[in-house]
C-alpha cells in the first residue's frame, strides 16, 4: 500500500513537478520584490523567453528523435545577419524590406538545418559532432559576412517584429504562442508527429514499419534550423541590430528548456508542452535572480544545478515505475 502510494507521488511529481516548481518560483520572486510581477517585467520575461522558446519548440522535435542541435545559437546569428545583409543590399527604404529580411533569415536557417540533417543521415555522422562543427562554422560565417560589425538601421516595420505588439501583447510572444501551439498539435495529432516519436522510440522498428527514417530525421533539423532563422530575425528586430555575437550560448538555454521540460535525450518521450514550462522556468529564474541582485556568476551555477536535478529526478522516477 505505502509502496503504491509512494509511486503515485513520484509519478505525480514527475508529471507536474516542473510546473509546481515554476509556480513556486513565481510566487517566491513575486513576494520578494513587487516589481517582479509588474506588467512591464512580465512582458520583458516573456519576450526574452519567446526568442529562445521558438527554437526550443524545434529542438523538442530534434531531441525526440534522440538527436541534438548545438548549432542553433550560431545559426540564429548567421541567419539574422544574412537577413539584415540582404535587406541592406536592396535598400532599407524598400517598403517590404522587413519581409525580405524575414524570408532570407528563415530560408538560410532552413537550408543550413537541412544540410546538417543530411550530413547526420547520409554520412551517419553523430548529430552531436555535426552540430558541434556547425556551432563554430556558422559563428565564423557570421563574422565573415559583415567583417564582425553589426548591421543596424532598420525601419519601423522591421522593428515592429521585435518591439511592437498585437492587442497589447508583444509580437515575439504572439509568435511564440502560435509556434508552440503548432508544435503541440503536430506532435499530438498528426501522422508526422507519430512518426517522430516512432523514430525516436525505436528506429529499427520504425524502419520495419515502412517509415523513411532518414527523411524524418533530416526534417527535424530543417525545422529547428528554420525556427533558429526566425528567432535570428526577431532578435535583430528587438535589438535594432543584427550582431555577430547574437545568440551566443543559446544552444544551452534551448537544450536546457527541452530537457527540464521532461523530453528524454534518449528520444521517443516528452513533448512541446514540457518544453514551454522549461523555457519559462529558465526565463523566470534568470530574471528573478537579476531582480534580487544575485550575481550573474551565481545564476549560471543555479541553472546548471536545476538541469541536473531535473534529469536526475526523471531518471529516478522512471526506475520507480512499476
Amino acid at each position, binding site marked *: 500500500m505505502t509502496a503504491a502510494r509512494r509511486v503515485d507521488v513520484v509519478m505525480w511529481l514527475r508529471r507536474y513537478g516542473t510546473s509546481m516548481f515554476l509556480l513556486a518560483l513565481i510566487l517566491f520572486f513575486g513576494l520578494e520584490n513587487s516589481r517582479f510581477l509588474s506588467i512591464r517585467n512580465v512582458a520583458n520575461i516573456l519576450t526574452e523567453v519567446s526568442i529562445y522558446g521558438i527554437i526550443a519548440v524545434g529542438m523538442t522535435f530534434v531531441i525526440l528523435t534522440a538527436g541534438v542541435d548545438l548549432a542553433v545559437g550560431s545559426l540564429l546569428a548567421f541567419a539574422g545577419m544574412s537577413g539584415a545583409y540582404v535587406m541592406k543590399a536592396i535598400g532599407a527604404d524598400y517598403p517590404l524590406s522587413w519581409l525580405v529580411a524575414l524570408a532570407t533569415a528563415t530560408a538560410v536557417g532552413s537550408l543550413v538545418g537541412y544540410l546538417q540533417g543530411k550530413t547526420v543521415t547520409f554520412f551517419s555522422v553523430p548529430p552531436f559532432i555535426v552540430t558541434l562543427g556547425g556551432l563554430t562554422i556558422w559563428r565564423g560565417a557570421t563574422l565573415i559576412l559583415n567583417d564582425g560589425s553589426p548591421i543596424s538601421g532598420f525601419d519601423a516595420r522591421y522593428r515592429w517584429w521585435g518591439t511592437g505588439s498585437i492587442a497589447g501583447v508583444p509580437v515575439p510572444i504572439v509568435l511564440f504562442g502560435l509556434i508552440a501551439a503548432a508544435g503541440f498539435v503536430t506532435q499530438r495529432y498528426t501522422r508526422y508527429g*507519430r512518426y517522430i516519436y516512432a523514430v525516436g522510440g525505436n528506429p529499427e522498428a520504425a*524502419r520495419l514499419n515502412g517509415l523513411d527514417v532518414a527523411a524524418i530525421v533530416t526534417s527535424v533539423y530543417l525545422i529547428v534550423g528554420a525556427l533558429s532563422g526566425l528567432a535570428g530575425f526577431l532578435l535583430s528586430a528587438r535589438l535594432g541590430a543584427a550582431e555577430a555575437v547574437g545568440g551566443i550560448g543559446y544552444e544551452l538555454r534551448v537544450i536546457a528548456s527541452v530537457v527540464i521540460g521532461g523530453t528524454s535525450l534518449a528520444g*521517443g518521450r516528452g513533448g512541446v508542452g514540457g518544453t514551454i514550462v522549461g523555457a519559462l522556468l529558465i526565463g523566470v529564474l534568470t530574471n528573478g535572480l537579476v531582480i534580487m541582485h544575485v550575481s550573474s556568476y551565481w545564476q549560471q551555477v543555479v541553472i546548471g544545478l536545476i538541469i541536473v536535478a531535473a534529469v536526475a529526478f526523471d531518471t529516478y522516477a522512471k526506475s520507480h515505475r512499476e
Partner: protein
Amino acid sequence: MSAAILLDVRDVCKQFPGVRALDGVELQVAAQEVHALLGENGAGKSTLLKILSGALRADRGEATLDGIRLEPGQSPRDRQRLGLITIYQEFNLLPFMSIAENLYLGREPTRYGIIDWAALYENARALLADLGLSVDPRREVRHLSVAHQQMVEIGRAVAQKAKLIVMDEPTAALSGREVEILHTVMQGLKTRGVSFIYVTHRLDEVKRVCDGFTVLRDGRYVACGEVRGVEIRDLVRLMVGRDVEFSKRSRTAAPGETVLAVKGISRARESSGRHAIALKDLSVEVKAGEIVGFAGLVGAGRTELARIIFGADRCDDGVLYVNGLEMSPLRSPQEAIRAGMALVPEDRKQQGCFLDQSISQNMTLPSLKRIARWRIFVDEVKERQLVDHYRSALRIKMANSAVAVGTLSGGNQQKVLLARCMALQPKLLIVDEPTRGIDIGSKAEVHQLLFDMARSGIAVIVISSEMPEVLALSDRIIVFREGCISGLLDCRDATESNLMELMAISTAAGAQRVAAV
C-alpha cells in the same frame, strides 16, 4: 564413465511466471569429458546454463564442482573463480582491445603496479601457441573472424584455469573447417584435464566430438548416456518424444494464385559485419491461403531470406515476383508494405514494439495513412474504431489502449504486432518466431489467428525454431541449413524426425539419411 565426476547437478528446479522452466533436472559431467547437453528450443538448456554460470538462481537443487558445493547466491564471477566458465553465443570481448589484453583482462601481469606489457604479450603468445593458434596477440579483437574470437574466449577460459567450459551453440556461426579446428582445440584441452558442456543442435557433431550426453525435454531430465553406441536417430527420438502440444489443422482447400515467388536469391558472406552467413541460390514460392513454414536452426538463412523479401536487408542476386509482377529485390520495408507485405519481426522488443508508446500508437503506425484526415491529421475516431476492432477480434487484454505496450505480457504484445499487420490488410504476411517467449494459452490463440488469416486468403510465411510449431502451422515446410535450402516437406509427410534430420545434419549425411528413411 570411469573417470571421477567433475560436475554433479541434482534436482534443479526453476519457475518463471507462468512457466516451469526446469523441473528436477540432473546432469553429471566426468573429468576430461565433452558432454553434450541436448534438447529442443524451450527444453530448458539455456536456463540450466544460466543457473550454472550464476546468472540465474535456482529455486531448488544441488550442484558440486570438483567436490566443492556451488552455493546458490554466487555471482558469475564467483563461479569463474571456481573454474566454471561459460562462453555464450554473443562473445564477451572488448573489440577495441588487443587479444592479449582480452585474454588477461583484470589479471594482467604487473610490475610495481604497472602493467608489464612484455610479460603480457609473452604469456599471451604462449597461451595462443598452446591452442595451436598463430595470431599476433597485439591485434585488436575486432579484426578477428568469429572463429578466432571464439578461440580468444576459450583462451581466456584457459587463462582463468577453467575446469569446466560451458559452450552454448559454439558452432552456430562457424564454417565447416572452423568447426574442425574448434573440435581439435577442445580435444587438446580435454587431454589436459578440462571438461566441456557442449550445447548444440547439430547432432552429427555430437557423434564426432562428445563423450557423454544428457537430454532435456520440457524442462525435465529425460536420459543420459555415452555417445558411443548411440544412433543419431535415437537421440532425435529422445529429444522430440513428447506430447504434441498444438492441434494440427487440416490442410486448407487448394491454395490460390502465387502471391510471392523469389528466385535465385544469393548473398556473399561478409567477413565482418552483420551478414555472418552466405545465402546460396534460394528460391521460394508462396500461394494465397497457404502457410509456408521456414524451418532451420538460428543462422541457417530463414530469417535472413525473410528480411531480404521484406526489403529490410540487401542481397547480391535474385528476382522477386509479387502477384506475378517482376520486381528487383526491394530496397526498403516501405516498398514491401506498399507491395502488400507485412512483417512481424523476430525480436519483439528490439524490432517490433515501441515499448514506451501506447497500444494504439503501436497498432496503427503503418496504417496511419489510411486513417488520416487530409493525409495529415490522425483521425482519432477512426483510430479508436480500428484499435477496438482488433482488440476484441484478437482478445487483447489491456486496461485501455492508452497504456504503454511495454506493460503488456509478451503474448499480448505479440497480438498487438499481429493486429498492426492485419490492419495493413496484407496479401503476404511474414511472421518470424510467432510465439517466442509467450505462454501456452496465447500460443494457441496466435496459431488460430494465423490459420484464420490464411483462410481469408492471405499468403503466410511462418518462421520458427520450434519444430512442433512449424509442423502444426505449415501446409508446406522449407528447411534451411547453412544458407541453403536443404529440403522441402509437405505437411502430410513431415515429422519431427525427418525435419530435424534436414535441419541438423550436415547436408551430405542428411541426404543419405533421408534416402535411408
